[in-house]
C-alpha cells in the first residue's frame, strides 16, 4: 500500500481555487485554515439537535461540547496548561462552608455568548433551576437530590444551599470529559418546552460557532468566533493563531479512517486498532501520537478490567476471583489486544495521568509483599513487578526496535507490574473455594454443580477490547473454566441489571489529573448497592464492603484537595486488591493519531497540556496551542 500514497494526497484532498489555496471541496473553506477531526459518535442522528441538556442527545461530540459549550471548571486528565484544575467560567475554585452545605461560586467577568449577550449568574441559576423543573433532563435528579435553594449574590456570584452535606457538589460543573454546561437563559427562557427544543443553531459560549452541518449528520463545521477573546479559552494561549475552522466528521470504518488520514483528509483520528497506528506512523512521519512511538495511544483515565458479577455462585468467592486473576496471562492479553502497547495496572485505578505518582509507585512495596493463602497450608506472593518489561520484550519480538528496552521508559509508558500467571496457584485457590476439576478437566463445584461463565465483549468501535476479551476467555478456558464469549452491543445494558457473569469493560473512571477518587468511588457505597434485576449504576460488580463504606464517608467529609484523600485512596486500593472484586487490567488506551501536515502543536507525553482524544471537552485546549504549518 505504500508508495501509492503520494498520488492519493492530491486527488481526493480537494480542488485548488484560483488563489492557489486548497479549498475543501464543497465546504468552501481553505484547507490550511481548517482542522478536520473525527467525531467518534459517527453519524449524528438527529444531526440538528444541539440541546445538550437532555440525556438522549448523541450529536454533541461533533464539536458542540468541545468548541461550543462551556462550564465552570475544567480538570485535565493530564497535566493541563495552567495546572490540572482550571477555572473556566468560574474565577476561583468553589468555596464551601465548613460542613459542606453551602457552595459559593464566583464567576469570571467579560465572557460573552456568541450572540453578544454577556454570561452572568442568571445563566448559571437558570441552568440549575430549569433542569430541576423538567424531569428527564441530564441533571434533573442530581440537582433535585442536593440543591435546596440558590442565592444570587451578585451578577457574578452565586451561593447554592445544599439539602445535605456534599463536598463534591462542584463536580457537577467540573468538566472531566463533560459536565453540566451553561445554558443561555436569554434563549431558553423564550422556549416553551425545553426538553424538545433543538437549540438550532446553538448560541455558544465556547470559542467557536457552528457554521454549517450536514443534514445527514456526517459532518459539522465550526468557525472561530471573531470575539474569541471574550471566551474562557482566550486566557490559555494565542487563540488567534488557532484554526479558523474545525470540521468534525464521521470517520467511517477503521480502514477508511486510515485511508483518509493517508490522503490527509483527516487530521485527528480518534481511535482505532493498534495496527492502524503502526501503519500510519510507519508510512509517514507527519503522523503523531501521544507517546512518540510505542505504545502510541493515550491512556484514558479509565480502567479496563474483567468485571465480575459477585452475586453469581462461585464468583461470590474471593478465592475464585483471585484464581481467575492468576489464570490470566497478561503477556498474551497485552499482545493480543494491543500488540503489547498496553499500560497495565494491577490495582483498580487507571495507570494514567498523575495516578502512578499518587498510587501505583507508592504501593509497589505493598504489592510485592502481598501474600495469598492457597488453602493447602502454602502461601503465594502473586505480584510480578517485572510484568511490563516482560510484555515489552514480547512486543519486541513482533514489532522490533520501536519497542523501548529502557526500564524507566517502559515504566512510564506501560506501567510496572501485574499478577503472576500461575495456574497451579490458581488451581489451589479454586480447590480452596470448594471446586474440583471433573473428568473433562473442567472446574465444577464439589457437589457436582457446574461452574459456567458467559463472558461478554463489545462489538462496536473498540476492536482492541474485544480482542482482549477473547484472550481472557481463551486463558480461562485453558485453565478449565467452562466459559463462552458473547460479543454483543447491548452488554452494558445487561451488566447494569446484573444479567451477566463477567465482562471486559471499564467502570472505574477518575479525574485523571487529580488524585480524588470520588468520581467513581461514591457509587460503590453500599447505599447505592442494587441486587440483580435492578440497575446498579456504576457498581455492576455489586461489591459491598463495610470498610469501603467508611472510607467513602470519610472522604466525603474532606475537601477534594485535602491530602488525606490520597491516603484513604490507598487504603481503598488495598481493600479492593485483597477482595479482587474485579480484575484490573490496564488503562483504556485510545489510539489517537494526529497529522502534522497542516497543523502542529498537538499534545503529547512530552507536552501533556491536555488530552488529544477529540471527543473530550478538554480537547478545546488543543485549539489554544495548534499552529498552522503554513502549508
Amino acid at each position, binding site marked *: *500500500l505504500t508508495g*501509492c500514497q503520494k*498520488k492519493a494526497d492530491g*486527488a*481526493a484532498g480537494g480542488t485548488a481555487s484560483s488563489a492557489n489555496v486548497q479549498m*475543501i*471541496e*464543497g465546504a*468552501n*473553506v481553505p484547507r490550511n485554515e481548517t482542522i*478536520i477531526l473525527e467525531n467518534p459518535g459517527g*453519524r449524528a*442522528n*438527529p444531526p440538528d*439537535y444541539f440541546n445538550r441538556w437532555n*440525556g*438522549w442527545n*448523541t450529536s*454533541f461530540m461533533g464539536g458542540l461540547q468541545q468548541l461550543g459549550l462551556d462550564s465552570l471548571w475544567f480538570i485535565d486528565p493530564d497535566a493541563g496548561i495552567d495546572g490540572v484544575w482550571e477555572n473556566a467560567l468560574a474565577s476561583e475554585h468553589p468555596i464551601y462552608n465548613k460542613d459542606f452545605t453551602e457552595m459559593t461560586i464566583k464567576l469570571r467577568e467579560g465572557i460573552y455568548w456568541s450572540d453578544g449577550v454577556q454570561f452572568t449568574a442568571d445563566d448559571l441559576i437558570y441552568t440549575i433551576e430549569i433542569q430541576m423543573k423538567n424531569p*428527564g433532563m441530564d*441533571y*434533573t*435528579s442530581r440537582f433535585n437530590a442536593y440543591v435546596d435553594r440558590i442565592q444570587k449574590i451578585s451578577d457574578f456570584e452565586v451561593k447554592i444551599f445544599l439539602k445535605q452535606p456534599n463536598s463534591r457538589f462542584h*463536580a457537577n460543573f467540573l468538566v*472531566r*470529559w*463533560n*459536565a453540566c454546561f451553561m445554558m443561555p437563559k436569554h434563549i431558553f427562557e423564550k422556549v416553551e418546552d425545553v*426538553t424538545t427544543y433543538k437549540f438550532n443553531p446553538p448560541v455558544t459560549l465556547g470559542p467557536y460557532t457552528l457554521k*454549517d452541518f*450536514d*443534514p*445527514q*449528520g*456526517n459532518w459539522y463545521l465550526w468557525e472561530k468566533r471573531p470575539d474569541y477573546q471574550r471566551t474562557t479559552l482566550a486566557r490559555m494561549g494565542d487563540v488567534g493563531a488557532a484554526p479558523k475552522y474545525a*470540521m468534525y466528521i464521521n470517520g*467511517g*470504518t477503521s*480502514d*477508511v479512517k486510515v*485511508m*483518509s488520514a*493517508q*490522503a490527509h*483528509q483527516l487530521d485527528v483520528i480518534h481511535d482505532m486498532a493498534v495496527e492502524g497506528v503502526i501503519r500510519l506512523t510507519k508510512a509517514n512521519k507527519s503522523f503523531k501520537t501521544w507517546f512518540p512511538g510505542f505504545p502510541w495511544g493515550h491512556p484514558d483515565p479509565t480502567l479496563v478490567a474483567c468485571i465480575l458479577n459477585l452475586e453469581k455462585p462461585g464468583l461470590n468467592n474471593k478465592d475464585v476471583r483471585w484464581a481467575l486473576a492468576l489464570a490470566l496471562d497478561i503477556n498474551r492479553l497485552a499482545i493480543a489486544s494491543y500488540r503489547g502497547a498496553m499500560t497495565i495496572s494491577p490495582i483498580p485505578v487507571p495507570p494514567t495521568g498523575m495516578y502512578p505518582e499518587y498510587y501505583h509507585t507508592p504501593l509497589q512495596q505493598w504489592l510485592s509483599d502481598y501474600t495469598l493463602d492457597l488453602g493447602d497450608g502454602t502461601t503465594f506472593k502473586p505480584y510480578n513487578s517485572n510484568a511490563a518489561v516482560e510484555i515489552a520484550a514480547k512486543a519486541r519480538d513482533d514489532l522490533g526496535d520501536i519497542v523501548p528496552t529502557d526500564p524507566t521508559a517502559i515504566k512510564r509508558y506501560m506501567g510496572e507490574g501485574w499478577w503472576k500467571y500461575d495456574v497451579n496457584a490458581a488451581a489451589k485457590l479454586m480447590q480452596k473455594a470448594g471446586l474440583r476439576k471433573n473428568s473433562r478437566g473442567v472446574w465444577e463445584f464439589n457437589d457436582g454443580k457446574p461452574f459456567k461463565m458467559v463472558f461478554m465483549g463489545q*462489538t462496536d468501535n473498540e476492536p482492541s477490547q474485544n480482542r482482549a476479551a477473547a484472550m481472557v476467555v481463551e486463558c480461562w478456558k485453558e485453565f478449565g473454566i467452562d466459559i463462552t464469549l458473547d460479543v454483543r*452491543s*447491548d452488554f*452494558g*445494558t*445487561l451488566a447494569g*441489571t446484573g*444479567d451477566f457473569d463477567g465482562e471486559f469493560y471499564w467502570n472505574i473512571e477518575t479525574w485523571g489529573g487529580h488524585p480524588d477518587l470520588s*468520581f467513581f468511588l*461514591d*457509587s460503590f457505597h453500599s447505599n*447505592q448497592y442494587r441486587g440483580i434485576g*435492578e*440497575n446498579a*449504576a456504576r457498581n455492576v460488580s455489586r461489591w459491598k464492603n463495610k470498610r469501603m463504606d467508611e472510607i467513602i464517608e470519610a472522604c466525603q467529609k474532606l475537601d477534594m484537595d485535602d491530602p488525606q484523600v490520597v491516603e484513604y485512596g490507598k487504603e481503598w486500593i488495598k481493600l479492593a486488591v485483597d477482595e479482587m472484586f474485579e480484575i484490573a487490567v490496564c488503562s483504556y488506551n485510545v489510539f489517537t493519531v494526529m497529522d502534522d501536515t497542516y497543523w502542529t502543536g498537538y499534545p503529547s507525553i512530552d507536552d501533556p497540556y491536555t488530552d488529544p482524544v477529540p471527543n473530550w471537552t478538554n480537547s478545546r485546549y488543543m485549539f489554544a496551542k495548534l499552529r498552522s504549518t503554513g502549508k
Partner: protein
Amino acid sequence: MKKFLLNYVLPRIGQYIMVIFVGVTVTFIIPRLSPSDPVQAQINRTMTSGVNYTPDMLDDFRASLTALYGLEGSNWEQYLEFWGRLFRGDLGRSLSSFPTPVTELIGRSMPWTLGLLLTATIISWIVGNLLGGFSSYYPKSKLLGSIDVISQAVRPIPYYILALLLVIFFAYIWPIFPIRGAYPMGMRPSYTWKFVTTVLYHSVLPAFSLIVGGVGGWFIGMKSLTSNIISEDYVVYAETAGLKQNKILFGYVIRNAMLPQITGLALNLGMIFNGAMILEVIFTYPGIGLLAYQAILSTDYTLIMGITIFSIIGVATAALILDLVYPLFDPRVRIQ
C-alpha cells in the same frame, strides 16, 4: 371487471393485509422477548456519556423514560397502541435519537438508499439478465463462457471484502473515486447540478460493488430460464424466418423469461432495506443500512422495528403492485 376485482384484486389485497399483519406482529414480538430492555439501554447510554448517577436517580430516570417511550402498560396494550400508531403513520420515536420520530430518521435516509440501491439493483438486474440471456443463446461463445464462470466466482466473495477491495483499489491505490460518503464532507446537499454530479461521482464505487456482486445471481437465474425457452417452437420459428439474432434474443427469448425475474426484482427490493447495511457501513453512505447498523449497535428497538416494518410494507406493496399489473405484462396470465 367486477369479476376481476372480486376474484383477483380483493383476495390479493386480503393476502397483502394478512402478510403485513403477520410480519408486523412478528416484528413486535421478537424485541419484547429480548433480555435487553430499551429503557435500560438508554440509561446506559446516558451513563457512558459521563453523567454520574446513583441508583435512586436511575430509578427516577427510568420511570420518566418509560413514560416518554410509551412503554407503560401490558404487552397487549402496547400492541394495540402500536397498531393504533402505525395506522397514523407513526412508527414511534427512536430511542437512541430520542425524541426524533423513527419516520423522520427513515425519511432522511431513505432517498439515499433508494437512489443508490434501486439504481444499482436495477442495473445489476439488467446486466445480469442480459448476460444470462446472451449466454444461453450463444452457448458456444468463449467470452460469455468466461463471464459465466467469473460471475459465479465473484458471487461467493463476501460482500464486505469485495467492497473493501474495490475501495482500496479505486480510491486508495489508484484514487480515481472518493473513499467514502455520498458527497464530500463539508458539502451541503442542494438541488444544484454540481451537487447532483458530485453525488453521482460518489455513487460510482458503491454502485459498482453492488453490481459486481449482484450480477451473478440474476445471470444464473436468467440463464436457466432462457435455456428452456431457446428450444421453444417460437424461437426456432423466428430463426427459420431469418429474424436477426438480436431481435430473437430480446423479443423472443429474454422477453419470455422476464416475468419470474421481475417478481424476483420486486422481492429483491427487500435487500434495499437490509442487505445494504454492509455497503453503507463501508462507504459511509448515509442511507437506511447505516441507520439500521447504528440502530443495532445502540439497541434502538423502535428504530430496528421501524426499518423492518418499513421494509415489510415496502416489499409487500411492491409485490402487490406487481401482481396487480402482471396481467398487463403477460397476456397469458389468467385466472381459473
